């Protein structure tokens, strides 16, 4: 494993993300409320550019919401621009396919720099 410098923290505001190339792979690096997460820029479905999608929340509706629609995980969901498959960017979990998840890369912040470990 090696550390890869991504960007200065001040250039990576909460709610933003960027797609970077590390060696030969593109990786999306996300700032969610000050915590950083990273996922491969490859959707599990048809290998579309997942991390070029929009970050948003999503809906929930179950017994805990009284079977009414609720807005949840605001800022934690990436939606693939190709066919709309949703992933929890904090875990890599695919929402439509509970058995499927993306690799989630560790990200650290040291001396003002965001670093990806790969």
């Amino acid at each position, binding site marked *: *494993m*090696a550390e890869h410098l991504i960007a200065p923290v001040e250039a990576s505001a909460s709610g933003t993300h960027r797609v970077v190339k590390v*060696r*030969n*792979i*593109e990786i999306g690096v996300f700032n969610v409320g000050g915590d950083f997460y990273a996922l*491969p820029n*490859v959707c*599990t479905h048809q*290998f*579309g*550019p997942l991390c070029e999608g929009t970050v948003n929340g999503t809906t929930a509706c179950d017994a805990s919401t009284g079977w009414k629609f609720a807005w949840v995980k605001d800022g934690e969901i990436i939606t693939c621009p190709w066919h709309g498959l949703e992933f929890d960017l904090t875990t*890599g979990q695919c929402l439509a396919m509970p*058995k*499927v*998840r*993306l*690799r989630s890369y560790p990200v650290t912040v040291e001396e003002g720099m965001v670093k990806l470990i*790969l």
Partner: protein
Amino acid sequence: MSELLSRLVIRRLGVGERPALGDLTAGGVDTREQTDCCSYVAEIDGHCVGYLLVQSISYLDGKPLTLWIDDLAVHPDHRRRKIATALYRELGTWARAEGVKAILTRIPPDNAAARALHQQIGFEDHATGTLVWRLDRD
């Protein structure tokens, strides 16, 4: 040459093992600490002549669903001897048995030799600029 190739051994790279291939190890090659997939090294008489470095980028039920090729290298003295093909054959066999759906990589457009090799293996150009080998479709 065939005598030399009969001594070719493809084996799985050990966890944390750094394949030494002259100065090809320079440039921060991954040391393969991932335990959920397989990288391979090609050896002749115990000397590394090539390697294929792989990571899992998605999982189905905890098992690799898609793989990414981080690096493929063959020592200049041993090129055009199907060593890369042999490395991919091993990976393909393992990946199919694991239920892997596809193997992806990205190769610079100007590296015609590497692109031709990968097309021969079964990789196809994808709209995103990656190369995709659909194990579930070939």
